[in-house]
């Protein structure tokens, strides 16, 4: 899926959060790195229309994120930094089915798709569990399942391994590596970027590097000085 | 209603439900426990304003109707809507709305603190007590047979406790306004 930024910039109350940016993203695995407040999340939110560019344009598969907001949301799924917040209904299977409601699907179709995605992420045994009782790793897997059930072409993950212990971090890393979908991953977990096709480094609202993982990480370390 | 408004309404309803599940507060100088749930009604108006505040309370009552024990003390179901005190529950919705309406008109973020306090206090007393009692006593009088005057009078013994709640709603309303303002302004 082609994601195209054309001179897109964002400012909040006149203060620039992301300086004008033009680029085209089509690789399967794209990483985004940078310090807190460097513009990473702003950049990611532009992709599925959660944020509108103040100036310029962003398109996903040829669809404008402002004009075709609903269609773009169907193509680009978003996993939030705190997956607890994006699980909306009390029980896991209900929450996964939630994304499919209002799509004119039959009840059978909804439950078949829900079962399939639970199976895909090997969390069928959690189907009837309450969201607030899931562990960190389980919540993150559930969040990914709840977004992928609607069949988006690209998945944006905002710090997916944040707050996870070593074992769960490994589980999520492997899950991301195994996704057939295109994935854009914001992360502070630099080893996660091994094998990625392209890494963007943001610094103070500007794209500072756009390179292969090793080179981008090297630039990152140089800028930050550690 | 925007998605954010919908979520605010649901979260506030969840707060009111949670307040019914925690043990009642006791104030040091008064031995009567304060059930926090009816305080939640005043707070809904003071914090979310008329429309969203009333919607939050209505949502709580909807949960009661469908059979969830979300009123304080684990009460719920249709039975509470046919008892003699059912009017107070209906009054909660109107009360939250009127509280919100008055707060929206009287309270501004830019006002001095004292004016904000007085605005919230007036809103909580008129909406959270006046309107709630109006509905409550109307049904109580209708449903309670011939002794309605005596019973209506007897229900007034709860007024002092409710005035304390209005005072707490005033303090909390103003603190939330300072920390995370949500109240829409109306002129």
């Amino acid at each position, binding site marked *: 899926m082609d994601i195209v930024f054309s001179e897109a910039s964002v400012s909040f109350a006149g203060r620039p959060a992301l300086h004008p940016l033009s680029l085209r993203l089509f690789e399967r695995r794209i990483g985004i790195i940078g310090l807190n407040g460097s513009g990473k999340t702003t950049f990611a939110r532009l992709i599925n229309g*959660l944020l509108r560019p103040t100036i310029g344009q962003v398109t996903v598969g040829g669809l404008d994120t402002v004009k075709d907001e*609903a269609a773009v*949301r169907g193509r680009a799924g*978003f996993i*939030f930094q705190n997956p*607890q*917040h*994006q*699980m*909306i*209904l*009390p029980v896991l299977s209900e929450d996964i089915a*939630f*994304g499919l409601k*209002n799509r004119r699907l039959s009840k059978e179709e909804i439950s078949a798709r829900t079962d399939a995605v639970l199976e895909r992420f090997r969390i069928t045994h959690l189907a009837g569990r*309450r*969201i*607030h009782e899931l562990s960190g790793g389980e919540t993150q897997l559930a969040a990914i399942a709840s*977004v992928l059930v609607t069949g988006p072409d690209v998945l944006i993950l905002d710090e997916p391994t944040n707050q996870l212990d070593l074992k769960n971090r490994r589980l999520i890393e492997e899950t991301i590596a195994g996704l057939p979908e295109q994935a854009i991953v914001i992360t502070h977990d630099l080893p996660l970027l091994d094998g990625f096709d392209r890494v963007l480094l943001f610094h103070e609202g500007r794209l500072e590097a756009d390179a292969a993982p090793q080179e981008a990480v090297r630039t990152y370390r140089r800028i930050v000085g550690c | *209603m925007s*998605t*954010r408004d*919908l*979520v605010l*309404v*649901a*979260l*506030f309803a*969840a707060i009111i*439900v*949670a307040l019914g599940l*925690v043990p009642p507060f006791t104030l040091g100088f008064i031995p009567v426990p304060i059930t*926090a749930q009816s305080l939640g009604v005043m*707070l809904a108006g003071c*914090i979310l304003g008329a429309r969203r505040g009333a919607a939050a309370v209505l*949502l*709580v009552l*909807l*949960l009661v109707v*469908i*059979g969830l*024990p979300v009123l304080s003390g684990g009460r719920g*179901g*249709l*039975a509470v*809507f*046919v*008892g*003699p*005190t059912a009017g107070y529950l209906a009054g909660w919705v109107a009360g939250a709305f009127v509280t919100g309406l008055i707060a929206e008109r009287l309270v501004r973020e830019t006002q001095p603190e004292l004016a904000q306090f007085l605005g919230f206090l007036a809103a909580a007393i008129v909406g959270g007590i006046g309107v709630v009692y109006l509905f409550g006593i109307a049904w109580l009088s209708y*449903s*309670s*047979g*011939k*002794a309605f005057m*005596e019973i209506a009078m007897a229900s007034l013994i709860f007024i002092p406790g409710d005035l304390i709640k209005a005072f*707490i709603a005033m303090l*909390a309303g103003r603190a*939330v306004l300072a920390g995370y303002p*949500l109240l829409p302004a109306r002129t």
Partner: protein
Amino acid sequence: MLTGLDIAGDTPLHRASARLKLILLFLAAVALFLVHSPWALAAAAIIAVGLYASTGIAPGEAVRRVRFVLFTVLLVAVANYIFHSLDDALAVLFRLGALVLLAAAVTATTTISAFMDEITRLLRPLERFGFVRAADVSLAVGLVLRFVPEILARYGDIREAHRARGLRVRPLGVLVPLIILTLKDADTIAMAIDARAFRRQ
């Protein structure tokens, strides 16, 4: 934690549709207020006890559910006895008592989803005028059930934090941070709902 008040079973009341039960409850309420004879009302109360018992509810649970409302009914009856007559007192006692038990019987035999379906149907005409969307109402109900446990956990955390800092736990000191912290999540949750494209027009 928050489980419904319906009781599993296959009694005639369980099999009746939610709509039929609600209509009958409404008609019963109207009828009970039109009747004034204590004897006729006593008969109605006995029938109501029978119907409530027919739901298969355990006796202890049956009493626990209605005792508070029945207590207020009793207070009202006592006031009628003191200020008026025994007949007035009995009429109010049996009328409201019967109504409370009938309502409790409907609640005990109707599942939450059956109620929600009925409410969705009732909202449909309003939906046409753009007042409210039925899908939003069921979403809001789900959100409340989802977040009550989290708010309770947060309530516990705030109390603990007060104690850790050696502060006395006061209503305001708990309420204000509880409300602000909870409502601050609204933006993220709303964004998550929009991101999942649920409320498409």
